[in-house]
């Protein structure tokens, strides 16, 4: 491992949103703002090339598989060119300087300042609709009507379908609508942009990282295959017992209902989960357990919204992976792991944008198929 790989900056989370509006909060990706000028132009990295094997690999990794290491002989021609250019003496020198600058650059919150309001707004709509009786979004996150149109959470619907063995047309309409909408914006973007438990969990994670920094707690990572096992077990339980067993403990349903109709004993379970996440297992529920995340992950496999990586800009220092909820989708940012000069994060990615916020040189961007770079 090189010193570059070893270098770890504190992840994006712990800085409070409103702290500073100084220069270091400017999006680093725009142009080369604030960075020393690049001594030589990189060879063209090209555009992302779709491949079935990459898609399959993404699903395999989402289900808990270890990302496959590619041999250098698998590298594409353009990747070899970029790599050759990156290892020229002047580029090495330049990248050392950049890295130094990276160390002293704080992460921005340019996506979070949209994302948190998005979660709050979506959930607030449910609350306001009921309590002020404006009938905008009636119901809870498990199922609702948006100005009269049926919406149904995919995982909840799946549980109901397996337990009841029948689907009403209204539910089917709700499922298709929701599947399409979340497919359009990235699948697991449901997690990062709408799920109320995700927000609570993010706050728990910030506390965990603060405590970890002081050496008071440490993370105990689990085997990622756990989520797949839980997914299958809960599906089988719904089918076998005829009860929506998962809904009993779903923190998303519990929190959503508590917000709209008032909380009860079930919130104790949510509190226990959050305590586990603060003191023992970072992001336990979202990373290793939640079947809802996996359901929306499948929706996102073919989604047009992806996080895209540009090899020529990456310094491989790993800030993105430290900030990420699902770092296995950013495996290609590790030195010598990418086989192409442009790579896209797999379907487990929640499109939260925290990797973008952590990446000073702007090697990572949101990519919307057909529209191009978003940022």
């Amino acid at each position, binding site marked *: 491992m090189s010193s570059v790989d070893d270098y770890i900056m504190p992840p994006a989370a712990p800085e409070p949103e409103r702290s500073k509006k100084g220069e270091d909060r400017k999006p680093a990706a725009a142009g080369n703002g604030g960075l020393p000028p690049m001594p030589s132009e990189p060879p063209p990295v090209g555009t992302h090339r779709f491949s079935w094997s990459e898609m399959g690999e993404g699903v395999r990794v989402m289900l808990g598989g270890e990302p496959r290491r590619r041999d250098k002989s698998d590298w594409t021609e353009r990747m070899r060119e970029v790599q050759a250019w990156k290892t020229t003496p002047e580029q090495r020198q330049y990248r050392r300087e950049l890295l130094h600058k990276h160390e002293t650059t704080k992460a921005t919150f340019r996506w979070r300042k949209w994302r948190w309001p998005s979660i709050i707004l979506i959930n607030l709509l449910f609350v306001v*609709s*009921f309590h002020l009786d404006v009938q905008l979004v*009636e*119901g*809870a996150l*498990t*199922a*609702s*009507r948006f100005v009269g149109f*049926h919406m*149904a*959470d995919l995982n*909840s*619907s799946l549980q*109901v379908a397996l*337990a*009841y063995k*029948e689907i*009403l047309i*209204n*539910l089917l309409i*709700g499922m298709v609508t929701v599947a399409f909408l979340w497919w359009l914006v990235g699948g697991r973007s449901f997690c990062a942009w709408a799920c109320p438990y995700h927000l609570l969990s993010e706050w728990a994670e910030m506390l965990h990282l603060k405590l970890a920094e002081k050496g008071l707690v440490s993370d*105990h*990572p*689990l*085997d990622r*295959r*756990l989520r797949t*096992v*839980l997914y299958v*077990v*809960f599906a089988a*339980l719904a089918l076998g*017992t*005829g*009860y*929506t*067993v*998962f*809904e*009993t*403990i779903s923190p998303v*349903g*519990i929190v959503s*209902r508590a917000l*709209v*109709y008032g909380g*009860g*004993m*079930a919130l*104790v*379970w949510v509190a226990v989960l959050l305590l586990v996440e603060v003191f023992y*297992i970072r992001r*336990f529920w979202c990373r*290793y*357990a939640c079947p809802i995340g996996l359901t929306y992950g499948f929706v996102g496999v073919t989604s047009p919204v992806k996080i895209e990586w540009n090899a020529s800009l990456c310094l491989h220092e790993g800030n993105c992976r430290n900030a990420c909820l699902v770092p296995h989708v950013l495996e290609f940012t590790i030195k010598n792991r990418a086989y192409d000069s442009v790579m896209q994060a797999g379907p487990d990615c929640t499109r939260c944008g925290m990797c973008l916020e952590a990446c000073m040189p702007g090697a990572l961007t949101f990519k919307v198929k057909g529209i191009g770079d978003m940022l």
Partner: protein
Amino acid sequence: MTEKLSLAAMLRPKELSPRQQKERRSFLLSVLAGTGVIGLALLGYVPLVKGWVKRLRPPGALDEREFLASCIKCGQCVQVCPVSAIELADAEDGFGNGVPYIDARRQACDFSCDAVQCVLACPTGALSHQLDKKEQARMGLARLTRPDACLARQGKGFKGVARGPAFPGLHRYVKVDRWTPIPVASHPYDLTLCDLCVRECPIKDAISLEPLESDPLGASRTPVVHEACVGCGMCEMICPVAEPCIEVEERLTWAAAQGRA
């Protein structure tokens, strides 16, 4: 301590590298966590098996088992109810967590909405869409559970507000306001013989006052529930004595009740 360690070493043919040890710990912790999550979810079975859950469900609810399976726990039925009769159950209901029920004594369903709104709101058909008239509902059956306390059976009248001035329950008094339910506490009665359960019943011919068998010529009367009763619980809510004389037994059918008698 040392013996234990050496025994473990003997049982294990090869020393594990720190990395392997870490992976093993992580794997075991994962098994533990997964078992915990599944175990906790399955605990939801206990209230059902033990019969702790006896809930009056909203009109149109499928059989209890199918109802729990098909309900998506969204509370849209809660939102449309004009008298806020429907509540969502908490974790103590196990698999019924988040499932709607009615506590009739607190607030009964008096069909103020006319069109069975909760059924129309239900996205999964857990409240069966085959129900479109209140008379078709079969939530349970009203039964005279404390006949000795019944005012009518004692030949007594009733004067005042049915459940006291602090009672928050609502009821639609058609003669007061055809469309809007008003607080029961704002509607005083002055009756020479108490007939609240019959008077406020929203279903035609579901309940009547009949002479007592033991005293057919006296002034006393007893409430008698008929086959038309849908089990909405209005009689249970309005019964003015401290412990209601008449209560709905959830899911009880007419046939089952006749068989029992």
